């Protein structure tokens, strides 16, 4: 089986009560049957292959978390087909859970007042991980990150970075086929972020775990993902290699000019329609140019343009 996740025309609608304004409205709402349907996910079709790390991106409220909840089996899609590890997740939720790991950056699944090692032991028994596999996993963890200082620390005393790290380790402990990481680097400092990226990459390589990552940090995307899927307003608007992304709007370059008054002027240029040299010449007529830099467009900028401009 090559595919970890197969989604075909998956839609998810929520029924929301139409709330009215004011005190009178609130009383009216008590008996109101006036519902409106909100589509969180519209007709999403995608396939995630085994061992892939994919970046699942989209602006806030685009439907990312809803999709993840559908894939984990917590939400039932309104229509469409979905298979995770070859099974329908919402019909076999408990079974599906044995083969997936989940990290929500904002929440912890660890036992708050217990030292990390106790959470690990408990998860080992919950997922019925054989003793030897568990030992191997801990050995692998030791080789990838320095876990000694946190292993015997109660989770409540950990810093946010240590806790996120622990949560990721906990999600991989039973060697699941797929791990969902929902904004794992949210609120972390630069060095912790890079530590966590290295860890994810290392675990993906060693165990060939499929990783589905949602994030707002393009650094995560650049460091981890070969392929990205972008959704906006519930619809998939991009699904391809990260390299293709740079040419998504045409061949853009950032041109930086240092002017006579020592300020840098930045502009985005589409090389297909305008010539960079022409722009420089044009500028030179107005002001003296001291220095020139031509930069490749960053992932962040493309993504921002996609979010702001919607589809092409």
């Amino acid at each position: 089986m090559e595919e970890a996740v197969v989604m075909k025309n998956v839609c998810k609608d929520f029924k929301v009560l139409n709330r009215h304004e004011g005190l009178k409205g609130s009383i009216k709402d008590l008996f109101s049957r006036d519902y409106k349907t909100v589509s969180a996910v519209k007709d999403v079709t995608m396939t995630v292959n085994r061992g892939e790390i994919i970046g699942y991106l989209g602006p806030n409220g685009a439907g990312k978390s809803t999709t993840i909840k559908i894939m984990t089996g917590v939400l039932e899609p309104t229509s469409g087909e979905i298979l995770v590890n070859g099974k329908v997740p919402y019909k076999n939720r408990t079974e599906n859970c044995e083969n997936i790991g989940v990290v929500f950056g904002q929440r912890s699944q660890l036992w708050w007042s217990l030292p990390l090692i106790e959470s690990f032991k408990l998860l080992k028994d919950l997922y019925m991980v054989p003793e030897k596999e568990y030992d191997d996993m801990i050995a692998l963890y030791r080789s990838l990150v320095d876990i000694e200082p946190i292993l015997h620390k109660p989770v409540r005393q950990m810093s946010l970075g240590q806790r996120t790290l622990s949560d990721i380790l906990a999600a991989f402990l039973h060697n699941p086929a797929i791990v969902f990481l929902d904004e794992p680097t949210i609120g972390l400092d630069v060095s912790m972020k890079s530590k966590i990226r290295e860890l994810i990459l290392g675990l993906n390589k060693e165990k060939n775990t499929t990783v589905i990552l949602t994030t707002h940090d393009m650094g995560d995307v650049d460091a981890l993902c070969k392929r990205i899927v972008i959704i906006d307003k519930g619809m998939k608007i991009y699904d391809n290699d990260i390299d293709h992304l740079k040419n998504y709007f045409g061949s853009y370059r950032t041109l930086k000019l240092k002017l006579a008054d020592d300020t840098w002027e930045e502009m985005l240029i589409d090389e297909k329609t305008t010539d960079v040299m022409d722009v420089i010449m044009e500028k030179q007529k107005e002001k003296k140019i001291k220095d020139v830099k031509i930069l490749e467009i960053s992932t962040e900028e493309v993504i921002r343009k996609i979010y702001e401009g919607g589809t092409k």
Partner: protein
Amino acid sequence: MNPKRLLALTRAGIMESLYFRLGIFVTLFANLIYLVLVYYLWKAIYASSGTDVVNGMTFTDTMIYLILATAIFNFLEMFVVWDMSRSIQSGKIVLDLLKPMRYRKYTFWSYTGNHVVQFFLTFVPTFIVVMIVTHGAIKFGLNIIWFLVATVFALIINYNIEMLVAPICLFTESTWGINIVKETIVLLLSGATIPLAFFPEKIRMIVQYLPFRAVYDIPLSILLGKSGSDTWDGLLKLFGLQIVWLIVLTVAGNIFWNCAVKKITVNGG
């Protein structure tokens, strides 16, 4: 069904309860104050009645009953309603639904550790003190074993009552009021605050067959050799009542929870 999973959850629960060691002492202290209050209240009731025996119970009988009822209450107490409403409101319930176990089973076994700790740290000491103070007013024999069995049934029945109330917060988005109503009903009708013998005849006839009695009154009656539990016949009747309610409530709780889960999975909670 793997006992290792369940034991692991119980073990973690024990460790978590022991972590909050101060809480245990506070509970013991609060109990002491409550019992002083109960003592003087019932002393006044007996003094004003003019007789030594009220409704077939002497003052000592009543005190033993109420002290042990409080002790049982402490170790059977569950916070399923609070915990579930909090985790639904914060969305944490998703993490519990993502455990490789059925939710009802998972939560039940997450609580057992706390019950074990409370049993040894509040019930057993209270029981020993009552034994010493009353100079053997409590029989110490086979009834202890029957009591333990009845307590396990009571625990499951209590859990199922909680599980019948807790998912209501999915529909109301607030549980405070519902929980207070539930607690009051359980405490009153189970005999935890007033011995059932003190109820008016007609009400007692009804209350006798309600599930709340199976939580506190039945284990206690068995321990104290009351309500005919000193005969095989009477004992079987009490266990029979417990088992019937256990089955009914487990089935009802299961159905209700499945509806509730449907609401989470269909409408996102």
